[in-house]
């Protein structure tokens, strides 16, 4: 009895192996998205089956790195182009040439494909703010339009966001603002927004979950989280701020894939009009990269090819982003994720002081407030330092450039930042409290 129970799966395994060779896909996409694709792909290509392995983007990258010695994965399929950039640099992606008819090389200024053919954008995503309509109604809060709206004092405690080190898409959001507003302005904006946050979630999906359940009012998310939540019936809406980046979700073949033929077939399928059509399903709601598919899109579906879509979209600099990828993550975590309480207290103190002295009515208080704001906004390193390979090298895994001298261990650097940040926040809070106490 027991023996048969143990044998059955083994037999099943062998039976599976005897039929069509499966295409093994490591993906961060949810079941809601992978299931329709699997069904459509297997219907279109009867000699291939799809085997989905779900891991979040970072774990997926780690997985491919850990298992590179004997790779079992054919396809890596995820949103964040940065993750593909990391894999490509590690030599973990194989270049291919799929059929890309009808797909432009660029959407909204963002390149859709890796010029060397290691990965391809198959869906576009913008970043936006999703909000819970019941929540903002109950708390009498405004409907947001721009990132700046999340900095307003009345938003305090109502915003949620994921950490860029945990979520590739969030990283892009952070980097988009840093590139759009500039290093110092960008970080300042993030800190004022973060001061209003009630949580920094560990998974990117934690944000839509918080907004859907009403734990948070506003969430900074990639668009399809908002769109599919709304399609599922949650009382949520999504808005695109004018500064956003259109970023592709990508697919690429893993180097040394066990089933390269099937892998290529899958990439072809995803980029084909039938594959693009699948993106319009309510549970997926991602923006196809083939303009022709929008003809079948439901009403109100955002169209990145339209003129009025995200007018201030920036030209995203992939190289710049890639060079400081880990540094930005680390900086965000040190300044915001790990010190959220300290930051929140400082921001709340400044907001209280400003409420007590509106519009610089009291110059003495205003001076204190300005000083406090400067302390909160201060960043431990400048953009130039961040671009210095000696510095960024502290945070990279690959020692490809042996000649690059690095300035210390990551833990040491982070410790210094942490000390500076904690001191700044504490001082800012003190100053703001002093300002509030003035009459």
């Amino acid at each position: 009895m027991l023996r048969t129970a143990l044998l059955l799966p083994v037999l099943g395994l062998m039976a599976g192996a005897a039929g069509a060779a499966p295409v093994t896909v490591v993906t961060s996409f949810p079941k809601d998205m992978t299931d329709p694709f699997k069904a459509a792909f297997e219907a279109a290509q009867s000699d291939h089956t799809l085997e989905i392995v779900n891991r979040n983007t970072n774990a997926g990258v780690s997985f491919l790195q850990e298992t590179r010695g004997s790779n079992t994965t054919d396809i890596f399929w995820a949103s964040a182009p940065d993750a593909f950039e990391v894999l490509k640099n590690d030599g973990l992606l194989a270049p291919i040439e799929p059929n890309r008819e009808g797909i432009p090389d660029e959407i909204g200024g963002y390149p859709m494909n890796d010029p060397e053919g290691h990965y391809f954008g198959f869906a576009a995503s913008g970043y936006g703010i999703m909000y819970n309509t019941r929540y903002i109604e109950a708390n009498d809060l405004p409907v947001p339009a721009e990132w700046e709206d999340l900095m307003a004092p009345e938003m305090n405690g109502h915003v949620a966001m994921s950490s860029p080190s945990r979520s590739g898409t969030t990283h892009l959001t952070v980097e988009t603002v840093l590139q759009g507003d500039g290093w110092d302005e960008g970080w300042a904006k993030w800190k004022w927004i973060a001061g209003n946050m009630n949580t920094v979630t560990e998974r990117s999906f934690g944000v839509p979950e918080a907004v859907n359940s009403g734990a948070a009012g506003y969430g900074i998310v990639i668009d399809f989280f908002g769109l599919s939540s709304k399609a599922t019936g949650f009382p949520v809406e999504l808005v695109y701020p004018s500064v956003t980046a259109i970023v592709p979700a990508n697919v690429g073949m893993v180097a040394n894939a066990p089933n390269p033929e099937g892998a290529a077939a899958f990439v072809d399928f995803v980029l084909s009009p039938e594959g693009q059509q699948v993106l319009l399903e309510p549970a997926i709601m991602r923006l196809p990269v083939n303009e022709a598919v929008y003809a079948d899109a439901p009403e109100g579906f955002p169209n990145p090819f339209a003129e009025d879509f995200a007018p201030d979209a920036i030209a995203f600099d992939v190289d710049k982003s890639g060079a400081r990828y880990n540094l930005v993550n680390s900086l965000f975590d040190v300044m915001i994720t790990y010190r959220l309480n300290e930051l929140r207290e400082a921001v709340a103190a400044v907001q209280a002081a400003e409420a007590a002295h509106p519009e610089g009515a009291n110059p003495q208080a205003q001076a204190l407030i300005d000083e406090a704001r400067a302390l909160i906004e201060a960043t431990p390193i400048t953009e130039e330092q961040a671009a210095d390979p000696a510095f960024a090298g502290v945070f990279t895994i690959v020692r490809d450039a042996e000649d690059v001298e690095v300035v210390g261990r990551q833990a040491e650097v982070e410790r210094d930042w942490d000390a500076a940040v904690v001191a700044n926040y504490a001082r800012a809070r003190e100053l703001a409290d002093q300002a509030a106490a003035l009459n």
Partner: protein
Amino acid sequence: MTVTTVSIRPRLPRLSRPSALAVIGILIAAFLMMFLILPVIQVIYVAFLDPRSGALTLDNFSDFFASPLFRESFWNSLYVAAMSVVFATLIALPLAYLTTRFDFAGSAVIQSLGIIPLIMPPFVGAVAMQLLFGRNGTVNLLLNDWFGFKIPFMEGLNGVIFVESIHYFPFILINLSASLRNIDRSMEEAAQNLGASGMRLFRRIVFPLAMPGYIAGAALVFIKVFDDLGTPLMLNVKAMLAPQAYMRITGVGINDPMGYVISFILIAFSVLSLWLSFLVMRGRDYATVQKGGGGLARRQLSPWERVAAWVVILVILGLVLAPHIGLMLLSFGTIWSFSPLPDAFTLKHYGTVFSQAGQYITNTLLYAGGAALIDILIGTAVAYIVLRTGLPGRRWLDYLSTAALAVPGVVLGIGYLRMFHGVHLPGVGPLASWWVMIMIALAIRRLPYALRACMAALQQVSLSLEEAAENLGASKARSIRRIVVPLMTGGILAGFVTSFATAAVELSATIMLVSGERDAPLSYGIYLFMQSPSGRGAGAALGIIAVIIVALATYISQRVIERDSHLRGARPTGSH
């Protein structure tokens, strides 16, 4: 027999036929080395490497202790673990007291529902708790409507303590109840005779005598909470050790040895707590039941007392089963957002998972069942070798098996990937992605529970019963098979149930090892569903299915154990 108040220990050492047992012992040791010690070393040795030169160094540790964030995380973890023990005790103590001291129907309720909190699939539990106790959860929305204030149940460290206590208190409940039941009635009567009663009696005599069980349970809670990753992550608390380790190990492209340093510290600290609890309990084996039976006297409750006891039980159970209640609502609810209850109810989610649940259920039963089977085989063998033979190094088998308690699941999972991915088996492919490895990982993770149950069971089988069999001509092997193991059945089954029930909902090691949906168990299926807005209800439905399966399996085994202990009760298994 000479009745003394110390427990009856077998006369050790006694080497009758060591060779076969020695071989088994060595095989088990090899198995544990292969699947526990070496994989863990694979992971934590990184803590001692310079990330750039690859040379051995202790710099990483000085970095750890020099960093205020890490020091804070360390203290937070300690604080949360200690406070969780306190709150878990507050929950478990009244329940244990009521079940062991009074004759009333609530005891059965506690016994069957008391273990349920342990079988809560990760992710869903926290989601359900957020919906009930979160800042805009049911309770707070109602409080706000009625009284205009909210209670931050789920915020920060307090939230972690809240959730952890509710999840892990059964460890204390189970161990404490067992200890209480093992106290001889005369211990209590002697105190009453000398004038003690009520709470004083409990505080001065009964509880101290149950202390070994309490400490065992409390140490387990402490370690589990200290190592636990899921709860702080779900509550977005990051300034604790386990989340710091996880975030640093799994971040993209980060070659930060801190994650490994923290893993090492987590393991070292857990081993230390285990060792301390061993030290505290040594020489305090107070199991005092004499002549087979006569545990504490149970008293009938007066009607008013019964009402009060039911109120206490229902309040506590309502609290500890909140995750399950929330999960149930979620699985039947349509949209549940910023409202005390879901907008409407539906069966749709069960329809969604119905088509796919079969494969998850089969896999879960296979993995958890196989793991539990491995556990009781090893557990019985180790218990026998440790308690009944004089094999050199036998204690180390016990320590090795118990050491798995101290290893976070993620560390074990990464260790397996590192160690076994390069190993190819013909017809299987890389060893690390073979489903059997999931089973082995689960078996290793749950071995300590099964081992403790087997040890306890063997301790209750008098050595003379085995000697009688040998005297009548049974070989060592046959007397073990025909006398010892049958008499241990109840305990072995209890070990099986604990291993099975907890393995069935385990995710942390599994998530690293599952190589495809085909091989995925229920917990992984739930994780998949919970990654999308429309999958929340379906994931909850799958969670409910998981809880029901495990509860059913537990219930059936419980019945078997009860029947078995009735049979045993009719037989003189005592020690005179």
